[in-house]
């Protein structure tokens, strides 16, 4: 069973129901052809980097699925090409690292600008680290205030 990912961009001009039904037709096509849907991700309205069909935004969808054989993919692509509401599509086969990456991403183990080791440790330790970081700053501020207060007290005495 190979795992595939198909991204497609739906025309934003349509009404919300039409957009959802468009995406649903393709989800149903996958499951009716013997595929197992792993995840459907609606990435929502996004700004396009360059105009497509004279539109500057689009609704992005990503469907991850598993199929035992790949005949269905050709049919899906043909349907994408014929459908006027789909602006772009891209089918990608995921290797084992891609599968693992997507699973980790769904479980929240992939964060920004953190080392990739021990994500769970980071997640549980993050709150403690944040608290510890706040305390020294507060202490530093208090120390500065004390230092600022001392000379003024000295000058008043004089």
């Amino acid at each position, binding site marked *: 069973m190979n795992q595939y990912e198909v991204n497609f961009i739906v025309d934003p001009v349509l009404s919300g129901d039409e957009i959802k039904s468009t995406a649903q037709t393709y989800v149903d096509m996958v499951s009716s052809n013997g595929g197992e849907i792993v995840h459907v991700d609606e990435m929502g309205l996004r700004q396009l980097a360059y105009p497509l069909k004279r539109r500057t935004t689009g609704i*992005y969808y990503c469907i991850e699925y598993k199929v035992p054989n790949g005949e269905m993919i050709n049919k899906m692509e043909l349907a994408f090409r014929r459908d006027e509401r789909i602006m772009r599509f891209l089918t990608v086969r995921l290797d084992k690292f891609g599968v693992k990456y997507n699973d980790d991403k769904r479980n929240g183990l992939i964060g920004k600008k953190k080392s990739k080791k021990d994500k769970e440790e980071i997640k549980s330790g993050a709150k403690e680290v944040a608290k510890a970081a706040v305390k020294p700053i507060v202490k530093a501020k208090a120390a500065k205030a004390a230092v600022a207060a001392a000379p003024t007290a000295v000058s008043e005495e004089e």
Partner: protein
Amino acid sequence: MASRDDIKFLSNPNIGSQRRKYCRFRKYGIRYIDYKDPDFLLQFINEQGKILPRRITGNSLKFQRKIATAVKRARHLAMLPYVADLLK
């Protein structure tokens, strides 16, 4: 005979042996590059949207090729531009 302190060079003889370049993917054990993440891929393209060469980014050949395919897929999906200016 001039002592070592008297010898001055026009350019520092130690220049060039400063930073060890490394491939960040090999170092941190990253095995997959997601083409759906344009913020991450921005590190590997210049302000005109062109893919940066390996000697600038320090990537190994294997990951430079993966980055290139990821950028090209992102461009197809209109997440990154083909041509731009002042991208960053």
